[in-house]
C-alpha cells in the first residue's frame, strides 16, 4: 500500500539557495511524526510543501501514491489537512465562531456545526470561553482554540509548526497532556515540527532530524534519540545535556 504522503526527489530553492533537498520521505497513516532540527533548517518550509501550501522547485509530492500538480492541489485535497502554527492567528470574533470556521467554509449545516463546536470546545477545555472575543485570550487559551479549530474538521493529517513553543512551561505541559490524549483518541496522523527535545520525546512516535535542508535520520523516536548517527549526533547531544531523556 502506498504511504499517505510521500516526497520524491524534492528540492526547494529560494534566491538560488537550496532550502530543502529530500530524495525521498514518507508519512504513514496513524503515525505521530516529529520533525526536529535547528533554526533555519527548513522545517517550516517542509511543512508548507507537505500541506500543499507552497510550491517545491522540483520533485514530487504524492498523496496515496498519486502525484499532485505542483502548486495546484485541488481544494478537496487541501481540505483534508489542517495546520496550526506557533502564533494562534485567530480572527476577530467569538471563540465559538473561530473554532467553527473550518466547517463554515465547508458549508456544513448550522446544527451540525453547533454540535461539533461544543464537542471540541469541551475536549480542549474552552467551553467557558465560547462567547469571548478570541483576540482577547491568554496565550494558552488561544492555542487551545487554535488546535480545536484545526481538529474540528477531523483532518486526515494535522500539521503543527511549533504550536507550544511560545507558551510558558506549566501552560505548555497542561496543553500537551490534553492534546496527546485527544490525538490518541482521534488517531489523527500528525506531523509535528519542533526544535524542543522535551516536546518531541513526549509526543512523537517517529522522528526525522533535519539539518541544512536535508533529512539526516529517520526512525522510531526512542531509537533515533538513543542511537543518533554521525550527522545528527552533535545536534542531539547538545540537547541531551539539558534533557537526559535517552540515558
Amino acid at each position: 500500500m502506498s504511504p499517505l504522503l510521500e516526497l520524491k526527489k524534492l528540492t526547494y530553492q529560494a534566491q538560488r539557495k537550496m532550502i530543502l533537498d529530500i530524495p525521498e520521505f514518507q508519512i504513514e497513516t496513524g503515525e505521530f511524526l516529529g520533525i526536529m532540527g535547528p533554526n533555519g533548517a527548513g522545517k517550516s518550509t517542509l511543512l508548507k510543501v507537505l500541506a500543499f501550501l507552497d510550491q517545491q522547485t522540483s520533485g514530487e509530492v504524492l498523496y496515496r501514491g498519486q502525484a499532485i500538480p505542483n502548486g495546484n492541489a485541488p481544494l478537496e485535497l487541501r481540505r483534508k489537512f489542517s495546520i496550526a502554527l506557533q502564533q494562534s492567528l485567530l480572527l476577530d470574533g467569538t471563540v465559538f465562531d473561530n473554532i467553527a470556521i473550518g466547517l463554515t467554509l465547508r458549508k456544513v449545516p448550522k446544527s451540525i456545526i453547533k454540535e461539533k463546536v461544543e464537542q471540541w470546545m469541551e475536549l480542549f477545555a474552552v467551553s467557558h470561553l465560547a462567547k469571548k472575543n478570541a483576540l482577547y485570550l491568554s496565550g494558552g487559551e488561544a492555542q487551545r482554540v487554535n488546535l480545536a479549530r484545526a481538529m474540528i474538521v477531523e483532518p486526515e493529517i494535522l500539521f503543527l509548526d511549533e504550536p507550544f513553543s511560545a507558551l510558558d512551561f506549566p501552560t505548555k505541559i497542561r496543553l500537551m497532556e490534553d492534546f496527546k490524549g485527544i490525538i490518541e483518541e482521534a488517531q489523527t496522523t500528525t506531523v509535528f515540527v519542533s526544535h524542543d527535545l522535551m516536546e518531541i520525546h513526549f509526543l512523537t512516535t517517529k522522528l526525522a532530524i533535519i539539518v541544512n535542508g536535508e533529512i539526516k535520520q529517520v526512525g522510531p523516536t526512542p531509537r533515533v534519540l538513543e542511537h543518533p548517527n554521525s550527522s545528527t549526533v552533535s545536534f542531539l547531544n547538545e540537547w541531551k545535556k539539558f534533557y537526559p531523556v535517552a540515558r
Partner: protein
Amino acid sequence: MDLLIDGLKKAIDMILSGDQEVFAITWLTLKVCLISILISTLIGLPLGIFLGLTRFKGRRLLLMFINIGLGLPPVVAGLWITMLLWRSGPLGGLTLLYSPTAIVMAQILVSLPIVTSLTCTAFQQISEKMLLQIKALGATKVQTLWLLIKQLKIAILAAIMAGFGRVIAEVGAAMMVGGNIQGDTRILTTTIVMEVSKGNFDIALALSFILLSVALLITAALTFLQQRKRIS
C-alpha cells in the same frame, strides 16, 4: 454669540417652515455626496484591496500617485474637470459642465484616493502567515476575500467615512464645475460661500447647521455599522 443663536433659530425656522429652496439645496447636497462616495467606494475598495494584497511591478509608483491624490487640492481637481468638460475639451460634447454630474466627478476625484489608500493600508497589514492560515483552513479565494473584508470592516468603514468627510466639506471644486446655479447646482457649501459674500451671516450660519447635521447623521449611521456587534 447672539449671531450663533440667531443662526440656529433661523435654521430651525427654515426647516420647520419647509422652505422649498433650502430643502432642494439640502436634498441635492445629499444626493451628490452620497452618489460620489458610493462610486468612490465601488472603485476604491476593490482597488485598495488589490493593491494591499498583491505585489507587482509598478505597484509602488501607482500607490505613490494615489497618495499624492490624498492631498489633491479641490480647486485643482475642479480645474481638471472643468478643462475636461469645457466646450472644446475632450468631453465637451457631453455638455456636463455646470451640472450636478460635474460636481460628482470632481468629488470622486478628491475622495477616491482617500478610500483607495486607506483600504490598501488596512489590507497590507494582513500578514503572510495569516493569509496562509486562512488558506489552510480550507478557504477558497472568494471566501478568503470575504473573511478579510469582515475582519477589516472597521478600517474599511473608516476609509469610507474619511472619503465622505472630504466630499461633504468640499466647496472649491463644486463651485468651479457646478457654478452654484440656483435650482440646479447649488449645494450647501457653495450657498454658504455665496451668502457670506453677500453679508447674510444669519442665513449662512443656518445653512451651516443644516450641513453639520447632514454630515453628523451620515457619519453616525456609518459609525453604527462599524461598531455594531463588537464582542469583548
